[in-house]
C-alpha cells in the first residue's frame, strides 16, 4: 500500500464524513431543540435528491437543481412539521418513532407514485467532472473535492448561525429551557418550524449532492439515516460541534477500516478469506467505535449537561 493510496482514502473518508455531517446536523438540532426523534429525516434527503434530479432533467442546470433540492426539502420539512410533527412534541419517544416511521412509508410510496420505480438520472455537471491532480501526484475527482469544501463552508456557516445570530441565540436557549424562552415572548412554534425546515434543507442538499455520484432512488435515505444516528450518538445529542467531529470520525473509520482491515488479515490468512473476513469486520467498525465512545463518555463526545 502506497502513501498516495492512503492519502486518497483519507480524502474519501473526509468527503463521506462531511456528507454525513449535513444529515446529522439537522437531526441533532431537531433532537436537541425539540427533543424529537425524527426517523423521516432520511426521506427529506430523498426528497432533495428527487427534486434535484427532476429539475436537472428539465433545465439541465446543476446549480438550479441544488437550489430546488434545498427549497423542496425545506418546504417538505416545514409542511411535515406543521401537519404532523407539531402534534408529537409532548408525546413520548415511542409515539414519535411510530409516527415518523409512518412518514417514511408515506414519502417512499408517494415518491414511487410520482416518479416511478426505476432510479432517476442525476449527473455531475461537466465543469465539475473528471479528476484533478493534487500536490504529490494524487489524482482525485474534482466533484468530491467540491463536496468537501461545500460541506466545510456549510459547517462554518452553521457555527456562525448558532453562535453569532439572534436565531442562534434562540435555538440555544430553546435547547436548554423551552418553557422559559416561550415565557420570554419568543414564538416557540415558529422557531420549531424554522429549525425543522433548516435541518430538512441541509438533508435535501446532501441528498442532491450525493445523488449525483450515487443513485437517485426510493429508499436511498434510510441507510444514511442509520449512520447519521450513529454520528449524533457519538458526537453527543444536540451538539453541532459533536455532529461535525462525529461525522468525520465515522467517515474516516469506515473508509480506512475498509482498506486497512483486509490488509491486516492478509498478514496471517489466505487472500480471499482475508478480504471476506476483513470487510465483514470493517462494516462493524463504526458500531464498535460507537460502543467504545459510549463506554468512555456515555453522553457522547460533546454531549453536555443532559
Amino acid at each position, binding site marked *: 500500500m502506497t502513501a498516495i493510496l492512503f492519502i486518497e482514502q483519507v480524502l*474519501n473518508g473526509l468527503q463521506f464524513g462531511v456528507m454525513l455531517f449535513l444529515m446529522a446536523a439537522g437531526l441533532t438540532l431537531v433532537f436537541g431543540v425539540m427533543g424529537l426523534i425524527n426517523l423521516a429525516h432520511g426521506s427529506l434527503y430523498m426528497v432533495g435528491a428527487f427534486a434535484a434530479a427532476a429539475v436537472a432533467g428539465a433545465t439541465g442546470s446543476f446549480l438550479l437543481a441544488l437550489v430546488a433540492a434545498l427549497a423542496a426539502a425545506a418546504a417538505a420539512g416545514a409542511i411535515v412539521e406543521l401537519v404532523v410533527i407539531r402534534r408529537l412534541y409532548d408525546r413520548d419517544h415511542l409515539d414519535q418513532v411510530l409516527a415518523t416511521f409512518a412518514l417514511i412509508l408515506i414519502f417512499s410510496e408517494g415518491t414511487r407514485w410520482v416518479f416511478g*420505480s*426505476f432510479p432517476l*438520472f442525476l449527473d455531475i455537471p461537466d465543469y465539475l467532472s473528471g*479528476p484533478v491532480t493534487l500536490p504529490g501526484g494524487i489524482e482525485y475527482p474534482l466533484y468530491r473535492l467540491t463536496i468537501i469544501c461545500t460541506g466545510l463552508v456549510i459547517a462554518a456557516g452553521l457555527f456562525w448561525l448558532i453562535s453569532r445570530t439572534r436565531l442562534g441565540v434562540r435555538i440555544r436557549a430553546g435547547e436548554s429551557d423551552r418553557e422559559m424562552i416561550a415565557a420570554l415572548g419568543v414564538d416557540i412554534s415558529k422557531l420549531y418550524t424554522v429549525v425543522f425546515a433548516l435541518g430538512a434543507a441541509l438533508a435535501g442538499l446532501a441528498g442532491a449532492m450525493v445523488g449525483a455520484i450515487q*443513485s437517485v432512488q426510493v429508499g436511498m435515505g434510510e441507510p444514511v439515516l442509520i449512520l447519521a444516528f450513529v454520528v449524533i450518538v457519538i458526537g453527543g445529542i444536540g451538539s453541532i460541534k459533536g455532529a461535525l467531529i462525529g461525522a468525520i470520525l465515522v467517515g474516516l473509520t469506515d473508509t480506512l477500516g475498509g482498506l486497512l482491515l483486509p490488509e491486516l488479515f492478509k498478514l496471517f490468512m489466505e487472500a480471499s478469506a482475508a478480504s*471476506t473476513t476483513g*470487510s465483514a469486520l470493517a462494516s462493524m467498525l463504526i458500531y464498535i467505535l460507537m460502543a467504545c465512545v459510549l463506554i468512555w463518555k456515555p453522553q457522547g463526545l460533546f454531549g453536555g449537561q443532559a
Partner: protein
Amino acid sequence: MKMKTLLAAGCAAMMATAGLADDHKVKVGMITTLSGGGAGLGIDVRDGFLLAAKMAGNDNLEIVVEDDQRKPDIAVQLADKMIQSEKVDVLTGIIWSNLAMAVVPAATAQGKFYLSPNAGPSVLAGKGCHPNYFNVAWQNDNLHEAAGGYANSAGFKNSFILAPNYPAGQDALTGYKRIYEGELAGEVFTKLGQKDYASEIAQIRASDADSVYFFLPGGMGISFLKQYADSGLDLPVVGPAFSFDQGILQAVGDAAMGVKNTSQWNKDIDNEANKAFVEAFQAEYGRLPSLYASQGYDTANLLLSAMGKADVSDAEAFRAALKEADFDSTRGDFAFDSNNHPIQDIYVREVIKEGEVYTNKIIGTALEDHSNVYVEDCKM
C-alpha cells in the same frame, strides 16, 4: 400495499386450439417485488408474464399477483395463503435468491410447481433440486461464468474483482474465477447496499489491474459506474447484465457507454419470438423490455406450452410437459438440463445509445450451450 390482479384474458375463439384437457384451469400465484427499492425488477417480470398470458388469450390461465416487498417473511406468508386458500397449482415470480430459498422448498414439497423467472441459487440447482422446480432464467453463477469466459477471450490477464459481501456476491466471484484463467490484481468484498465506492476505486487505481469485473446489482451498480467514470480510470470494465438492464441504464447515463456485460437475452437476438415480444412489450407498456421482462415472458410461455400438452392435475404428465420446454423462447434455443435449469447461450453485450435511449447490443457469444456445475449434485 396489496395488489391483486385477477386476469382471465377473454378470447373465446382460442378455445379450439390444441383441444387437449382444456376444461381444466391452471391457477398461477405470482409472488414478486412490486414496492420498495427493488420494485423495478418485479414489475418487469410481472409485465412480461402478463403480456405473454394476454397474447396467448388462454381462458384457462388464471393469475394472482401479490407483492412480497422483498421480505422473506412476507413471501412465505403469501405462498402459504396462495397454496392454502387460493389453491394455486403453480407458483412463480420471486426475484431474490434469499426469498426463493424461503419459499420454493416448502412449495414443491407440497406438490406445487414452481417456475423461477429470476433467482437461481446454487442449492436449488444441486443438492436441493426438486422435480417440480424449474428455473427459466439461469443458475446464479451463469452470467458470471460467462464474464470469465469473455475475459479470457479479450485477453485480460490481471482482473480486479469486486462484489457485495453476501451469498450471491460470493457466488458471483466464484463463478467468474471458475472460468477466468488470468491472475487477480485484487479481490474485494463491499458492504451490501454500499453506495460510495471511492475507497474501492482508489484500490483499483493503486493496483496494477488490466481490467475490472464487478457484480453490484441495482443502485449499487449505478453508483459504482458513475464514480468510476468520474475517477479518470480507463481500465475496461465487465459486469453481468444485472447492472446494465434497461431500467438501470437510463440512470447511469454516459458512464455506462461501451461497457461490456454478459446476458442470456437481449432485444436484438434475431428470432421471431423475440421480435414479437419486443414489439408487443413496447406497444403495451411504452418502454423497452429488460432481461427480467424477457424471463417473465418466457416463464409464461413455458407454462402455456405445458398446459397445451397435459392437465395440471396429472402431475407426472405436466412435469414431463414442462421438462420438454417446447415453447418459442425469446432467447432462441432453450432446453432444460437434468436438474431443470437452462442450457442456453450467454452473450456479451455492449452498452450503446439509440437516439436518446441507452440500451445494449450483442457483440459476441461468451459461452455456448452453457449449463451449470451443479448438475451432478442433483439427485432426483
